[in-house]
């Protein structure tokens, strides 16, 4: 399949889904700061921070593995 390898690296696809989920969870984390959910540890706002971690991880994949920057298949 070497001459027909996907133009988009798998890591870029991982970046998309991590970034979208990170953004979603960060926004819901901000909402939960004003409206705390009924779960143990809600005061720690770990959902907000976890969302940020996913955004950063997804962002790194998106930037580093964007189509055209990396040779396909790497």
């Amino acid at each position: 399949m070497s001459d027909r390898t996907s133009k988009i690296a798998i890591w870029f696809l991982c970046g998309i889904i991590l970034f979208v989920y990170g953004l979603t969870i960060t926004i819901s984390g901000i909402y939960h700061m004003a409206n705390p959910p009924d779960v143990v540890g809600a005061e720690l706002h770990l959902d907000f921070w976890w969302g940020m971690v996913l955004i950063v991880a997804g962002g790194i994949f998106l930037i580093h593995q964007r189509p055209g920057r990396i040779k396909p298949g790497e």
Partner: protein
Amino acid sequence: MFQLHTVDLFIIVFYFVFVLGVGYYLKSYTKSGEDFFLAGRNQTAWIAGLSFIAANMGALELMGWSSAAYQYGMLAVHWYWIGAIPAILFLGIFMMPFYHVSKTHSVPGYLKMRFGESARGLAAVTFVVMTLLASGISMYAMGLVLENFFGWDFDTSILITAATVAAYVTMAGLTSAIFNEIIQFFLIWAGCLLIPIFGLIEVGGWHKLVELVNMRAAEITTAGASMLDRMHIWSTMASPELNPMGMHWLGIVFGLCFVLSMGYWTTDYLVVQRVLTAKDIRAAKTAPIIGSFFKMAIPFIVILPGLIGFAIIPGLQPESPDISATQSYNAVLPLLMKRYLAPGMLGLGVIALIAGFMSGMAGNVSAFATVWTYDIYRAYIRKHASDSHYLKLGRISTVFGVGVSIGTTYIVKRFSSIMDYMQALFSFFIAPLFATVLLGMFWKRCTPKAGFWGLLLGMCTSIGIFLGVRFEILDPSIVAFSEQPSTMAVNMWQAAWAFSVNFVATILISLFTAPKPVEELTGLVYGVSEVPHEGPSVWYRKPAYWAWVSFTIFVVLNIIFW
């Protein structure tokens, strides 16, 4: 019942759309049988290595081992460390060179080259049957989770998830399965990692957790009996009576490490297929080694939640018709999700479970499609068809495999005890297969007749012991060398017996039958082949170096939790 919010539903729907989109995108790059069945054999070590581990991380794995940690304590970690790491490293360093260089498309394909048609046929048929049954059982377990905890309709959840897997695997075969497995790998970690972190914060850290677990263990100890330690992995294994699993260390070292784990990680085509996609010998050797590091880390998101659940959610019981699903050991991971995960995070947690299920199922159906098409259809039904014919058949058999799995789900639903039996049976076809591959790859005198008859005798031994114990003809204490062995201990020894019978029988039969000429063994057996080497490179690119790093971490972890 858990309440899902709009944000959770968005996360779940987005996931399904995304994995289908990935399958659709990759479809245009899948033009040949090799693309479909072996992902073009051009994957990097990281891609092959992560999908190797992801295919093994089914939903049953996540929930089942959290449940086992609740029930047995830290002993469950043996299935991730000694029950995986030595075997994975052995696969990477010693077996991958031969699998890769022989250019085999499957493990039964290797048996064909080494022992001939009959051994391949036996291995292929048992693999196909067991894979489809295992896939159905896993689907049944997932349907139950979604029904019991989230109130989703059993039939609808089964159909939607199975149809999604069928769609993306049919579109682009193993490439699509692998790409989605890697996405699922990240989602499993993203969805599960916060649970042990929350748990450790709530109980006050590791030392407090140990105190709490010991306290709970004392509470459930019957009067007059001594408390069974749950926080050490070796020091309580000198005698089966000293640990909650009723297991002797010999059962773990021989039964689990040497037989079951070696058999599973080195000959079960579900996982081996992933590393066969590697682009070159270096990637083929490095892929399992990369996987070993992640395998060692999985207890953090699986075993630790089980221990935390034991400490803070006391009173869960073994699964039985008399209690609801939310009161059984199996509920520990979903209950912790409910306890800690806010809306949004909960959706991600649910996706982790669904992703685990889908990656396991995609692994099963893609392996099934390959073995069915190459090792049964092409070998016995239509030998000389065109590549496009086999590609088309691969797509059809993927849909067929998913259909049969769904059918199995409903058989299991009617006879739920089959679930326990089939899980055990599946493992025990693997144990004798390992003896056959091991002798075939490392002993040139091993003959084709011995390969077939040894394998058959090993399988008959495992089925015989299994049926003997189930129908109370055979005393389990004789099988497992223990007065009151747990089911797990009997399973372990059953595998050890199957392996031993196959091993001894294969050697004896080999001594009385004619071996293959040496020239026919080149590239298949150690000793008569030049071991393929990845060539010179800097130290940090050498697979052996990373294998030693992995092995050292494995030893240190065992010492820390001794």
